């Protein structure tokens, strides 16, 4: 395990040697830290309504103004980060826990298992991601859980495809065939021999999908089918802020900045990680762009 740890540390060192990646990691670390410790660190309440001071412009009391119910926009942006990050984490977990095994089985066994699993993945890709998520929410009803599941399920094909491609390239390697020849069970071989060697692209996918999940969650909230109020959400704030562009032009600005910076940080980190881990920048970039942007189509 210490070898793995050493490699992880070396990779982290090479990633952080790039200024853009360092800035991204610092921004993400601060965002995560502040959003998770907001109760203890900051005297801000995202739900407190100061109705006498609704739609205030930025000022001394409320640095970024207040919303239509007199709630502190800064507080809601900070707590909105928590909503975004937790949804992304949960969604990536769902997508990975289902998508990676699908890719493993399809790539390892091939044959009818591969055909069936990949057809199912094709069906999921037959709709732009946001429509797939909306269809799921139409069935499940609008709730925090529905948003989480919809975003998570939308990410399954990405994990399945990337894992499958990686497994296919490893399947006929000597060390995999050796375990097979020595009588290692298929599940042992898949999870203990193949998977540990397929981590790099999966890790890159985790970062890329986090960015996609944050954007998708915000888009769903913006469309009014995401996490229901009063939970603070950047997408929901943009949705409401859009109704008050004349009265409070700054309302919709801060949540958008927070959302954009988070997405840009994750995108940058994903690209750098891909180039460091894989040393095949162009290919990964295309994979990433195709998988994440074209197929998700959250526009």
């Amino acid at each position, binding site marked *: 395990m210490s070898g793995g740890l050493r490699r992880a540390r070396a990779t982290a060192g090479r990633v952080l040697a790039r200024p853009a990646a360092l800035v991204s990691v610092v921004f993400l670390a601060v965002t995560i830290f502040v959003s998770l410790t907001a109760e203890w660190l900051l005297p801000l309440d995202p739900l407190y309504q100061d109705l006498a001071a609704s739609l205030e412009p930025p000022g001394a009391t409320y640095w970024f103004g207040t919303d239509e119910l007199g709630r502190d926009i800064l507080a809601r942006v900070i707590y909105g980060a928590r909503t975004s990050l937790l949804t992304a984490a949960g969604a990536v977990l769902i997508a990975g826990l289902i998508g990676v095994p699908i890719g493993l089985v399809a790539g390892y066994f091939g044959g009818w298992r591969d055909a069936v699993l990949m*057809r*199912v993945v*094709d*069906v999921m890709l*037959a*709709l*732009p991601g*946001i*429509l797939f998520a*909306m*269809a799921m*929410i*139409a*069935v499940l*009803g609008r709730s925090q859980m529905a948003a989480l599941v919809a975003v998570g399920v939308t990410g399954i094909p990405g994990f399945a495809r990337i894992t499958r491609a990686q497994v296919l390239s490893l399947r006929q390697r000597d060390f995999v065939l050796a375990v097979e020849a020595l009588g290692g069970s298929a599940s042992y071989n898949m999870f203990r021999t193949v998977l540990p060697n397929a981590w790099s692209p999966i890790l890159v996918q985790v970062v890329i999908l986090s960015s996609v999940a944050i*954007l998708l969650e*915000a*888009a769903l909230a*913006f*469309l*009014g*089918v995401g996490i229901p109020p009063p939970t603070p959400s950047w*997408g929901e704030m*943009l949705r409401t*802020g*859009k109704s008050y*562009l*004349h009265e409070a*032009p700054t309302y*919709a*600005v801060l949540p*958008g900045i927070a*959302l*954009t910076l988070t*997405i*840009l940080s994750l*995108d*940058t980190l994903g690209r750098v990680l891909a180039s460091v881990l894989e040393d095949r920048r*162009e290919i990964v*970039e*295309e994979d990433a*762009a195709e998988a994440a*942007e*074209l197929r998700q*189509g*959250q*526009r």
Partner: protein
Amino acid sequence: MTTYILRRLAQLVPVLFLASIGIWAMVYAVPGSPVGAIVGENATPEQIQDTITRLGLDRPLYEQYWSWLRGAVVGDFGLSIQSREPVWGLIMARVPATIQLGLAAIVVGLVIGVPVAVVSALVPGSWIDRVLSAWSALALGVPTFWLGILLILLFAVELRWLPSVSTYVSFLEDPLGAVRNLLLPALTLGVYVSGIFARFLRASLLGELKADYVRTARSKGLPERDVVGRHVMRNALLPFVTIVGLMLAAFVGGTVVTEAVFTYPGIGRLLIQAIGVRDYPLIQGCILFVLVIYVLMNVMVDVLYAYIDPRIEYR
């Protein structure tokens, strides 16, 4: 070539079949009964019984699916719960608006993306390349709904040059009015898609610039302008056509978020409204329609690619 097209279409059959089951089953998966989902919560017992008989919900499941599918294949998705009008007509009424927005966005994307890609591919690694690459990353990272809001703030609220709400005006009937209404939504989508275009075209140009024929062309003394303009561009544009086609497919399939920002009356907005009032026949119709268009467009892109590039084998 014909075999290739037929084969690609045949591959769609299992995907469309599975997807159609999924879309059909949506109504059954809704908490409560499909009848409740279709007639709404305040239905009288007569309405419920009428719906059960009319939809044949007392028949076996495979029969129900079969009759739904038979209708769907000829465009009969039933009546919208909300408006009592045929779903097919409601969708068709929105198609021109969505196509017009998609095309306008592609044009904006090309106008911005192609020059960005060409310039940065000609001076790779330079500060210009870095700035332009940063532009692409920004264009891809900024959420369209926020960019749309910023554009509305600037051009509609502050400067008052353009409307903040975009209606559909046919470009063929009133070009000026169409541009006025389309400019902001097309810019919003176009900036995003320019990032994709720039990134792909740059990668593809850099790949071509390393090719042997470029060295040959240069060594025989061809001016750099011709090397790039006549040789490199032609080859680099081949894979690029695929990307443009895929984006068009995605946009024709619906530009849900951008339509919501500008309350633009396209298919995406129809779907959002349908979800809002739980109008299930309309939801099913919209999703199936988008799905079919999207997968067919994807096949068309592949076929087009095989057609323009003779090096592709029709396997």
